[in-house]
């Protein structure tokens, strides 16, 4: 009971903090716009024909996933900030378990990331996708499943890092491969076979596929059936939460 209350408390804190950061809120509106409009229109002519789907529509679920990925990994920074500003001590001496601290932070980060990812849906009309509320609501659980694991990765890396700078460097090394290999920007069938295998290991691949299946229903031929994507994501989340809890529990 008290553990649940602790988790709720830490979740609430992350969400409150996020809501008060105006610059981050604004930038989260602008970044996906750049990708969809500038990158999307630039590549449109070159890339449409092959999938049979308009390129901007094609990358739309990819950009949602990208926003989720980048934001989630970035959430790890809260561990470093809390350590830097001393607040981590207050949490760690509180009579709740380290696992609860981790889960509270993870859920908070996921909530923030999903809110950020939802902003992207506002732009769906710009690329000519007509989204109903039902599509959005169907996407929500997938978005959450993507972020649980990714935020866990971010928090885990941050608990191993000494400084803000080193976290910044590592973050890029994690973000870009996961993003490019996921098929967010191009169909995976373009890859040579060996790269195809690598992208099969990228959990985001399944997230992108699932979101595409839901958002571009009918137009997109899923790589895997939806339930299979979900299963992979659930296994990924469970593993990352477990690993994260163990590693976070050991840090001082």
């Amino acid at each position, binding site marked *: 009971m008290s553990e649940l209350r602790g988790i*709720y*408390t830490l979740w609430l804190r992350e969400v*409150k*903090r996020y809501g008060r950061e105006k610059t981050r809120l604004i930038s989260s509106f602008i970044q996906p716009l750049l990708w969809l409009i500038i990158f999307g229109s630039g590549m449109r002519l070159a890339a449409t024909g092959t999938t049979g789907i308009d390129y901007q529509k094609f990358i739309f679920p990819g950009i949602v996933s990208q926003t989720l990925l980048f934001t989630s990994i970035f959430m790890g920074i809260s561990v470093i900030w809390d350590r830097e*500003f*001393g*607040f981590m001590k*207050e*949490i760690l*001496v509180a009579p709740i378990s380290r696992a609860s601290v981790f889960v509270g932070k993870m859920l908070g980060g996921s909530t923030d990331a999903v809110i950020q990812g939802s902003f992207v849906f506002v732009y769906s009309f710009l690329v000519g996708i007509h989204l109903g509320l039902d599509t959005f609501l169907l996407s929500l659980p997938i978005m959450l499943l993507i972020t649980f694991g990714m935020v866990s990765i971010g928090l885990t890396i941050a608990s191993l890092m000494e400084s803000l700078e080193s976290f910044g460097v590592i973050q890029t090394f994690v973000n870009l491969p996961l993003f490019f290999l996921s098929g967010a920007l191009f169909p995976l069938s373009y890859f040579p076979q060996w790269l195809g295998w690598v992208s099969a290991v990228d959990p985001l691949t399944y997230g992108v596929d699932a979101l595409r299946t839901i958002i571009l229903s009918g137009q997109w031929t899923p790589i895997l059936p939806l339930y299979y994507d979900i299963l992979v994501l659930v296994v990924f989340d469970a593993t990352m939460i477990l690993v994260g809890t163990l590693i976070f529990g050991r840090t001082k």
Partner: protein
Amino acid sequence: MKEKLSNLTNPHPMIEIKDLTRNFGTLVAVNSLNFGVEEGEVFGLLGPNGAGKTTTLSMLCTILKPTSGTAIINGVDVRHHPSQVRKMIGIVFQDPSIDDRLTGRENLEMHANLYGVPSTVGKKRIDEVLGLVELEDKADLLMRTYSGGMRRRLEIARGLIHYPKVLFLDEPTIGLDPQTREHIWTYISALSKRESITIVLTTHYMEEADKLCDRVAIIDYGNIIALDQPERLKEGLEGDVITVRTGSVRELSEELRQQGLVKDLKETDGELKLVVKNGAAIMPRIVELATGLGVHIESMSMREPTLEDVFLHFTGREIRTEGGEEYHGLAAIKRRSIR
């Protein structure tokens, strides 16, 4: 010192420290401490930076495991039941530990939730502790708008929310200006009277220990070198402190020693510190001696002994000449002023 400890009236004090030891590699940071803290007492650990105060406190707060020995707080062993101990204690860390993106009240609410204070009690309690540190009207402002002193007060208030039996304060006024420091002292004295609570604080400010504490343990290189009420520690020196400024410290001290005029004599940089029984009578004698030697005395003063003199008496060093704390103070200010 041992006799004084066994003089404790209560066989089961609030805190019982038994052979508490902590090593870092080959360094013995805390060397087999033994003492008790009575319920309701304000107890001070006084010593220079690096003496082992914070290490001792960290072990009492279950943040750090003792290498050997243990401490019993309100009947619970810190080694074996750390989480039970944590529920009974409040901690105010040396470095700031608040979330400055949240308001004061939000920080307090979060603490109440983390410590499982029932929400019906929590609301009233938060107002109560805010009142204690006089921050009611600032409670709904973001912490980043608070001054260093206000943050400290809020941290003290926060440490009290869950009705702890013992409140630990690690250098409660480090990095604060003298005026704010006195303010904080007022709050600490007030809360020790109003709340039924035992307070343990560390400090390297003599004045702080003197003003706030019922008893003080002077700690140096991980050992307790004296433990008593501040008054008794000072009385223990039995006399007045005379400070003589002169260019020829050596010569004069030799002579004074030979004459057997003084109880205790310490030379520091261009200064001679003497502890004498009857200062008023000794001062003219010192002048006579100096004149006889042809030693020029720049100035001379006499005062009642302070805890500083007690420390000097036991260690031969002055607390303030220890390097670290200035840096620490500055670092603390710097950290407080960031955002």
